[in-house]
């Protein structure tokens, strides 16, 4: 509990870089912090893979916590094997393992040289962003279980959860989009090149054959663009029209169809050169915009449910008292299971044997572990913090109290379909205005010069394409998503960004969301305290109600309190008293007459002196995320703020300091209660953002208009949500919300720019005088200037995001 200041020379472990204290383990002149690290080194060294240590310094992961033997025995089960192996040909099998510990290039190197460790492995390939390794192996030379054990022995224990066997793990990479862009780009470039003669001679080509040749080539090149690349727009607008709804793709599809038809007509009847370059160009730009916007974070998952959190294997105690590892999905009621330290309980059970101290913080939000007595029901999802225990299963995994939450209706409906972007509304008005202009022009020409009617109407619909609106939206959204990602806020898609901008209420979970995942840490620095001295300090501290004193008391719980005389407390400074004639003082540096240690400023310092001699100081790290105190008042200016927690009321006073006395705070909320609370807010027409981190927030996150999951470790599980926020950037929440609001401004701004181009184009079109040159010039200029404008504006607004400092204290 008390860490001493190290004045001796520091050694760092050759394998993992952790500092080694006096009992270092030496091997071949290299120092290791523990036997585990040394063993991994020996394995790597024996196989001649020492390059691992040359590529990056101390690339290993600390092996202080040992992995249990026989942990992967469940991989011998046939059904599990069939689900995990995603491709097999004869004896050659392919399996993908998720290794969350991957973090550097050394990891990549080592994991791609697994064939050196075991001859049965043919090859292994790493996907670093996804933290996956694909292993190709001969099933008759090495088993799946052995591969998992090899990975664990070199420090990369694979994370296999229930999710791996219940869903199809391979997502087909969306190649069709790339093909469409490739073909559209190819045809666009070539059509434009072939149209140059048309441009430069202003429509008057000397050689008739050449002219016809180029026109027909253009027509031939435009066919794949129209029928293949642009097909997405046709399908999407057809679908929306069937539902009597005009989305943004409908006017675009119309414009493309009209441009194509008119061009085909002109080329076949030899009356003109057509506008195929504009058409293919606009299809190309819009497809690129869509792709840019949709480039979401493949490495993150926004769809996790309890299956990704539960482990796959569990030890079942057989009749002959031996342990067998079986997949969790095969657990039956009445099975006797053994849960070891640190393991997650996969099903509702009754405690049979052992000391159960279960940590439910992730599941219900309770911050302190729950002690269970023999015969009590232990619910699924908790983590055992003491030694091994034996339990008897009373409900199957899928029927447990926790998983019942996922049967709630809220997980079945799809929020996405309900909320449509404001862009669709804008494009509707645009289309109406356009049609009005077209009709007026048509009528005008009908009266004055009937031959110009079709000419002008089609020209209007070609030039004033609402494509510009789509371009502004997609490129802006793509940029916004990227800048948000740089601030470690990963939004699922652009729709989520819009919903954040519209929200007016924010609901916070407590445990893990506004507090750090680990409890407040207390460290002592200074001279060693004897047992008597520690009991004196504890006695003094227990006299005060100050949270810092309480923290000291908790850490010194083992000592019995003694009688104190002359107790005095000076608010804001410290406390003092006498025990058995010895004077004890606890308080700020000032109070004790010394200077504060300037280095430690991410926690409170409590100095201790005995008989006026300063012995040292306690450093108590803050429990609440730094920046919370300044963040909340800023948020409360624009949003209504609530706290809904599964924990007890102990912290209510502290929270009221930060959130204010009028803020509604609900404690002891079960997961369904949280969901109901969000529902009740929404029934008052509020738009709710929910911030949570654990499984207990899953329902509320899904129900709210925007669910944001907070996590301190991106590799850890986070429940299904619309956005993931890294805990270190929690204090940027106001800026993030503001940036989402700026998104709309940028889109409207770039739309106005495109309107200016449209007016210029319409000037020509209305007169029936739209030559292909003008269309071909206008289209790329407007597209490029819109893209430039959105990029620069998105960057300019993002500067506000960058200026807020990140919280680096609890890394």
């Amino acid at each position: 509990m008390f860490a001493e200041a190290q004045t001796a020379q520091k050694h760092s472990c050759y394998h993992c870089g952790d500092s080694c204290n006096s009992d270092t383990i030496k091997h071949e002149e290299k120092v290791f912090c523990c036997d585990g690290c040394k063993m991994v080194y020996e394995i790597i060294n024996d196989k001649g893979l020492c390059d691992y240590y040359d590529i990056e310094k101390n690339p290993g992961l600390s092996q202080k916590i040992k992995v249990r033997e026989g942990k992967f025995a469940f991989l011998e089960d046939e059904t599990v094997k069939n689900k995990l192996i995603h491709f097999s040909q004869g004896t050659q099998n392919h399996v993908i393992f998720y290794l969350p510990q991957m973090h550097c290039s050394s990891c990549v190197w080592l994991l791609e040289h697994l064939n050196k460790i075991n001859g049965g492995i043919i090859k292994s390939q790493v996907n670093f962003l996804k933290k996956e390794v694909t292993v190709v192996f001969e099933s008759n030379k090495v088993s799946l279980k052995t591969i998992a054990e090899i990975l664990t022995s070199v420090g990369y224990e694979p994370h296999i959860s229930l999710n791996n066997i219940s869903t199809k793990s391979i997502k087909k990479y969306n190649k069709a989009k790339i093909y469409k862009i490739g073909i559209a780009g190819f045809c666009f470039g070539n059509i434009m090149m072939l149209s140059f003669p048309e441009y430069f001679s202003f429509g008057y080509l000397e050689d008739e054959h050449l002219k016809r040749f180029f026109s027909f080539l253009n027509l031939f090149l435009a066919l794949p663009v129209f029928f293949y690349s642009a097909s997405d727009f046709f399908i999407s607008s057809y679908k929306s029209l069937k539902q009597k709804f005009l989305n943004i793709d409908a006017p675009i599809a119309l414009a493309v169809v009209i441009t194509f038809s008119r061009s085909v007509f002109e080329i076949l009847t030899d009356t003109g050169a057509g506008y195929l370059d504009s058409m293919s160009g606009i299809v190309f730009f819009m497809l690129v915009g869509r792709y840019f916007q949709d480039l979401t974070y493949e490495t993150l998952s926004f769809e996790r449910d309890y299956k990704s959190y539960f482990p796959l294997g569990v030890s079942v105690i057989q009749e002959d008292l031996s342990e067998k590892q079986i997949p969790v999905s095969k657990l039956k009621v009445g099975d006797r299971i053994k849960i070891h330290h640190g393991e997650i309980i996969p099903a509702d059970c009754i405690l049979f044997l052992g000391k159960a101290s279960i940590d439910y913080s992730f599941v219900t939000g309770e911050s302190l572990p729950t002690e269970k007595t023999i015969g009590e029901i232990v619910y699924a999802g908790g983590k055992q913090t003491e030694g091994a225990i034996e339990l008897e299963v009373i409900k199957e995994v899928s029927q447990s109290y926790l998983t019942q939450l996922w049967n709630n209706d809220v997980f079945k409906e799809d929020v996405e379909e309900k909320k449509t972007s404001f862009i669709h509304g804008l494009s509707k008005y645009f289309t109406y205005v356009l049609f009005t202009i077209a009709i007026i022009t048509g009528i005008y020409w009908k009266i004055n010069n009937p031959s110009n009617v079709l000419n002008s109407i089609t020209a209007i619909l070609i030039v004033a394409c609402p494509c510009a609106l789509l371009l502004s939206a997609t490129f802006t959204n793509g940029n916004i998503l990227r800048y948000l990602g740089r601030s470690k806020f990963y939004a699922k898609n652009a729709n989520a960004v819009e919903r954040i901008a519209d929200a007016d209420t924010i609901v916070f979970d407590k445990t893990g969301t506004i507090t750090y995942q680990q409890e407040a840490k207390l460290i002592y620095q200074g001279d060693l305290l004897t047992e008597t001295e520690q009991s004196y300090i504890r006695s003094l501290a227990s006299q005060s109600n100050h949270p810092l004193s309480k923290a000291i008391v908790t850490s010194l719980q083992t000592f019995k309190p003694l009688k104190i005389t002359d107790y005095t407390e000076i608010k804001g400074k410290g406390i003092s008293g006498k025990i058995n004639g010895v004077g004890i003082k606890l308080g700020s540096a000032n109070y004790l007459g010394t200077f504060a240690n300037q280095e430690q400023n991410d926690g409170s310092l409590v100095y201790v002196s005995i008989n006026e001699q300063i012995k040292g100081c306690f450093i108590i790290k803050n429990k609440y995320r730094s920046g919370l105190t300044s963040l909340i008042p800023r948020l409360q200016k624009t949003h209504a703020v609530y706290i809904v927690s599964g924990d007890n009321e102990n912290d209510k006073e502290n929270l009221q300091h930060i959130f204010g006395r009028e803020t509604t705070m609900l404690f002891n909320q079960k997961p369904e209660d949280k969901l109901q609370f969000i529902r009740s807010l929404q029934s008052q027409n509020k738009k709710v953002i929910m911030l949570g981190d654990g499984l207990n927030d899953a329902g509320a996150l899904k129900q709210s208009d925007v669910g944001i999951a907070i996590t301190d470790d991106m590799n850890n599980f986070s429940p299904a949500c619309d956005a993931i926020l890294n805990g270190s950037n929690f204090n940027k929440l106001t800026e993030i919300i503001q940036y989402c609001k700026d998104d709309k401004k940028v889109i409207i701004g770039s739309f106005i720019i495109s309107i200016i181009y449209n007016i210029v184009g319409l000037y020509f079109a209305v007169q029936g005088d739209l030559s292909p040159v003008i269309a071909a010039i206008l289209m790329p200029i407007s597209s490029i200037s819109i893209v430039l404008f959105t990029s620069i504006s998105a960057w300019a607004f993002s500067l506000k995001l960058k200026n807020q400092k990140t919280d680096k204290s609890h890394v």
Partner: protein
Amino acid sequence: MGAIFIMIGASLLMAIGFLIAFIWSVKNGQYEDDYTPSVRMLFDSNSKAKQSTENKTTNNN
């Protein structure tokens, strides 16, 4: 002027060749992971590993 027909035809054929190469590379999964190859290309090709195994065999002899 007739030469232009042949030239345009030839250039189009070349361009189509590139398009086919592009489609083939996407189909082969080249773009599925666009980060790890940048890490992989900086590795030495087994130079040290070969040395150490060679040393071991010479030591054993």
